């Protein structure tokens, strides 16, 4: 690009590209509102589905080999985004954002003719938008040989190896459940200001936390019920803030739990024998579980594989 290029008018190539961009953005926005999969993505997914385009998989070769030996076929990388502005509630916004992204991911998987999406990662792109956050899910849509495409594809936050492990044990990871709750507490009696009181529980704040956490977990349970009969691998995120309004201390406590939902028949155990062996994988072994499957929450609490 030369220094004085801006003096020239746009080339026909530029104009064509702009027109393509405008059409694509218009289509994406229309589809976001109507709940459809945007046309350009649909074309790519259908191409991968019927083999006219190469399939795309986030799987490693080892995972590819294990899913193939279990009759699964990768189709395409699917993804979904919801960028949400918290005008009303930050906490509830997290539930809304992930739920909407989850629905869109299922729609893409459906368009790809998939039975499941594996290796779903939760991502947040740090663009520093004030009071807003990006909720992105990326995974690999797969079909199961001998099964017709599902009209309600399952979404598994576990990587392919763990997915197959679970399948062998007759457990199906089905989706992501979110429980979020927050509460404000106005401490008129100032009982949580305990400067001179030695060793003593702050009952006010304990109770606040108790309520907030319990409600978040109740929400998790009811959201999970729509997708399976249990959850695994929690991610916990919580924060408490203090502020003062008209000389009254105010406390905000918020708690978010995210978990992988599963459908597991009670009483079924793993059919395998246990055998001792040496692992040839470099670095930390992938057998002991999964890497962090999200980068959306920096949490100081222990977390599972989600």
């Amino acid at each position, binding site marked *: 690009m030369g220094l004085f290029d801006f003096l020239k008018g746009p080339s026909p190539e530029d104009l064509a590209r702009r027109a393509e961009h405008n059409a694509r953005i218009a289509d994406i926005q229309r589809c976001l509102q109507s709940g459809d999969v945007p046309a350009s993505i649909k074309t790519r997914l259908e191409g991968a589905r019927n083999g006219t385009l190469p399939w795309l998989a986030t799987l490693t070769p080892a995972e590819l080999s294990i899913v193939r030996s279990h009759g699964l076929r990768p189709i395409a990388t699917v993804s979904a985004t*919801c960028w949400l502005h918290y005008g009303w509630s930050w906490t509830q916004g997290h539930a809304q954002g992930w739920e909407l992204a989850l629905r869109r991911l299922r729609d893409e998987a459906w368009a790809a003719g998939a039975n499941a999406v594996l290796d779903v990662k939760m991502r947040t792109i740090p663009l520093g938008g004030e009071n807003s956050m990006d909720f992105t899910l990326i995974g690999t849509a797969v079909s199961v040989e001998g099964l017709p495409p599902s009209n309600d594809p399952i979404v598994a936050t576990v990587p392919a190896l763990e997915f197959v492990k679970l399948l062998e044990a007759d457990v199906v990871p089905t989706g992501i459940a979110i429980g979020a709750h927050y509460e404000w507490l106005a401490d008129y009696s100032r009982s949580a200001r305990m400067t001179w009181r030695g060793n003593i529980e702050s009952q006010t704040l304990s109770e606040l936390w108790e309520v907030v956490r319990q409600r978040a977990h109740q929400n998790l349970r009811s959201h999970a019920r729509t997708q399976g009969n249990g959850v695994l691998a929690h991610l916990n995120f919580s924060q408490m803030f203090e502020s003062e309004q008209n000389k009254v201390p105010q406390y905000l406590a918020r708690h978010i739990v995210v978990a992988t939902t599963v459908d597991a028949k009670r009483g079924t155990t793993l059919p395998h024998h246990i055998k001792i062996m040496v692992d040839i994988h470099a670095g930390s072994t992938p057998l002991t579980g999964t890497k962090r499957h999200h980068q959306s929450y920096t949490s100081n609490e222990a977390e599972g594989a989600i």
Partner: protein
Amino acid sequence: MATVIPAHAAERLKGLRSSAHSTGVFTSDFSVNEFLLVRKAGFEPIGLCVGTCVYHVGIQYGSWSKNQELDVLSKAMYHARELAMSRMRAEATAMQADGIVGVKLTIKRLEWDAQLLEFIAIGTGVVHGDGHKGFRAHDGGPFTSDLSGQDFWSLLHSGYRPVEMVMGSCVYHVAHRGMLSGLGTIGRNVELENFTSAMYEAREIAIERMQYEAANAKAEGVVGVEIHEGSHGWQTHVIEFFAIGTAVLPLEQEIAPEKIEDPIMVLSVND
């Protein structure tokens, strides 16, 4: 009973130098497991292949309130990586490698100039032990792959061979929100559809470009797809979506006559 040490290893342990690599030494960045598995897969490492490219990335500003691809930057990021990769591949061709495994592609910023980026591609050139040429890429040159030695072995044992590292880049300017548009959203949680659609378009462009490369390499599919989001010192709201993966083809019968066994599942009892 103790396992018998192979004769060649025993001789070396006794202090005798090997004559196996009389033409010279091989170089690689393999770990022990990688080395053993690449050889188990029937390949021998011959040398590290490097390609670098220092690139002056031009300037392009997005309009403040507009979602748009910054094609000058997209082209720069793609072209520079392509140059580094093709130089690495030329080195591999010169040493008559059949392929390059474990390619690492990195970008560094040079301190004194924000617009200078250094792109490095480095990997280990390998040859097939029996001189089989069937593993080469569709153009007869060495295949490229960012898969580690372990992954390479696993890929061959899942019935595929690597063809080419494929990638797609899209540098995108995400529109800023106007002052007024913020007012309407007070008190409500609303989706910012222009942000969402920017993410959709940028990601889609990157994926499509990668898939197009894979189709050009006559691949059946792409494994190990990763989508990176990065900002290489650009203004805020400018973000690069970079899709990368290894394009693969099914092994033909004559390349891998052995029957591929089903893998054994392992559950670790370690924490």
